[in-house]
């Protein structure tokens, strides 16, 4: 545990010295926040809260991208190799990535909430407990997804390609960029198989206070199971050496990490009325602009 803590402190310092982290981790989500609130907020506290939920999701999901790239870079440069000589386990190294990322994400989340309160006249704090829980488990889960990508790819180029594919799917299907309620119903159903959806709908619901405890618990469990599975997979597949190549079939482990969400997706589609609630919530906030109002119930 002390190794994990030592590594966590160093990872935080390294990130804060990295201009790319400041840009992608702090500046870009803030730019999105200003843009989305100005376009969709329209002075409504509820709308700002909803948009904020989406921006919090983007901020949390950013963990995915940064950690995979950093880990692959460390491996390619032979940095991991030096750590391998020391009594440091793969688990400690990976866990430190997740903890450091969480410590770095949290201030950005607080800043975004404060900006919405102060500058955009958001009158609610949402449900702070739900927000805290979802940000915490979400940051850890998406960090772990990043670590899996780092573990199954052999080069930075390959990492970027896989990151782009997964990131685009997460962004498109989560409802963090385009509201889920705006999609055709069949896409909404597919979205319930994506981990990003649980984070986005959870945080949107937590900020607008429309989420039910049952939904938040489901979101939490889905993300927590995803975290445990993906962390263990990345720990097992972890490679210290630049020349130790992952077999092509190792990439299938990314799919294995998504199995819990397959189960949750089936459950949510068959047994829960989450999509109806999402559409209803969106309709109540955006009124006539709500696409779901024109598309009927699922």
């Amino acid at each position, binding site marked *: 545990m*002390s*190794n994990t803590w*030592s*590594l966590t402190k*160093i990872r935080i*310092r*390294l990130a804060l*010295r*990295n201009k790319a982290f400041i840009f992608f981790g702090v500046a870009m989500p803030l730019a999105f926040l200003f843009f989305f609130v100005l376009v969709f907020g329209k002075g409504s506290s509820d709308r700002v809260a909803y948009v904020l939920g989406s921006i919090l999701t983007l901020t949390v999901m950013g963990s995915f991208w940064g950690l995979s790239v950093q880990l692959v870079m*460390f491996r390619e*440069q*032979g*940095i991991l*190799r*030096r750590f*391998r*000589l*020391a*009594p*440091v*386990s793969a688990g400690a190294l990976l866990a430190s990535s997740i903890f450091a990322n969480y410590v770095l994400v949290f201030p950005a989340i607080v800043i975004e909430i404060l900006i919405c309160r102060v500058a955009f006249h958001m009158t609610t704090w949402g449900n702070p407990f739900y927000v805290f829980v979802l940000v915490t488990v979400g940051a850890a889960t998406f960090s772990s997804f990043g670590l899996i990508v780092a573990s199954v790819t052999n080069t930075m180029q390959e990492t970027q390609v896989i990151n782009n594919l997964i990131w685009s799917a997460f962004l498109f299907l989560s409802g963090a960029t385009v509201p889920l309620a705006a999609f055709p119903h069949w896409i909404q159903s597919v979205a319930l198989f994506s981990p990003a959806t649980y984070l986005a709908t959870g945080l949107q619901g937590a900020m607008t206070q429309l989420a039910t405890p049952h939904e938040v618990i489901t979101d939490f469990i889905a993300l927590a199971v995803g975290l445990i599975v993906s962390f263990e997979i990345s720990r097992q597949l972890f490679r210290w*050496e630049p020349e130790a190549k992952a077999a092509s079939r190792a990439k299938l482990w990314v799919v294995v990490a998504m199995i819990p969400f397959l189960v949750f997706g089936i459950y949510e589609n068959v047994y829960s009325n989450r999509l109806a609630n999402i559409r209803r919530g969106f309709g109540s906030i955006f009124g006539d602009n709500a696409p779901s109002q024109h598309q009927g119930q699922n």
Partner: protein
Amino acid sequence: MSEPVIRVEDLHKSYGTVEALRGVSFEVHAGEVFGLLGPNGAGKTSTIEILEGLRAQDRGNVSVAGLDPQTAGPQFKQQVGAVLQSTALPEKLRVGEALSLFANFYRRHHDTEALLKRFQLEEKRNAFYSQLSGGQKQRLALALALVNDPVVVFLDEPTAGLDPQVRREIYDIIEELKSDKKTILLTTHYIEEAEKLCDRVAIVDRGKIIAEGTPRELKQRSGDTTRIEVRLSRPPRDGALKTLDGVTDVREFDGVYVLHSSRPPQTIVSLVKHLESEGSDLQSLEMFSPSLEDVFIELTGRRLRE
């Protein structure tokens, strides 16, 4: 003699179809500096990385401080320190932070301030790793290797690519470790490094140890002859150089004739006379005291840096 700290028995390692190690065996005793000397690709790094626990052997047994590097885990890592052939750290990591970080990994560790001073890195304490020169990076690598006050130190080509001044600084540090009675295994392809630093040397070629002993023993084994390297304006007649006074062996490498002589002055006089009679000119002549290079040439017919 004391129980060996490092024991290697019949080590084999292949990469695909390439046999990197073909039955390497040796022992290193407590407080000894043991060198693996050989050209690039001889199998030195494979051997040392197996001993560091970074690679698994295909066959054979190794033990370091009584532990198996592959299975002993953290207990093994607490006992050893290592400088890799090329050490890399995050660019934005400060020198002081790197030492403190690695010190925290070990149950027992040196005072990092003392290490900064010992390795002349005090002024670079707040410098980023990326801002260090090659020599400073290597000094930091050595400091990291010693941060846990290891029983065994592995140094893989510790001075490769460094300028002579920095190389001498590193030699001084290794000499200090030697006087601290650390058990050291180092790999090198620099003859002077092996001769200057090592108590015993194993000459490695193509995955095998072809000679082992103290530098003095090895040189004596090759006849303690002086090496004379000459470049001539015309190739000599076959076998002509072998007949020169005092010459014990003649080989040719890329137009350079390497003569081993037990009586160098007589050989040179005899050579000049021979060249006059043949109408040939001496383009260059260099003399070298007996060295491990000569042992390598004698045993392999090749130069160490071919």
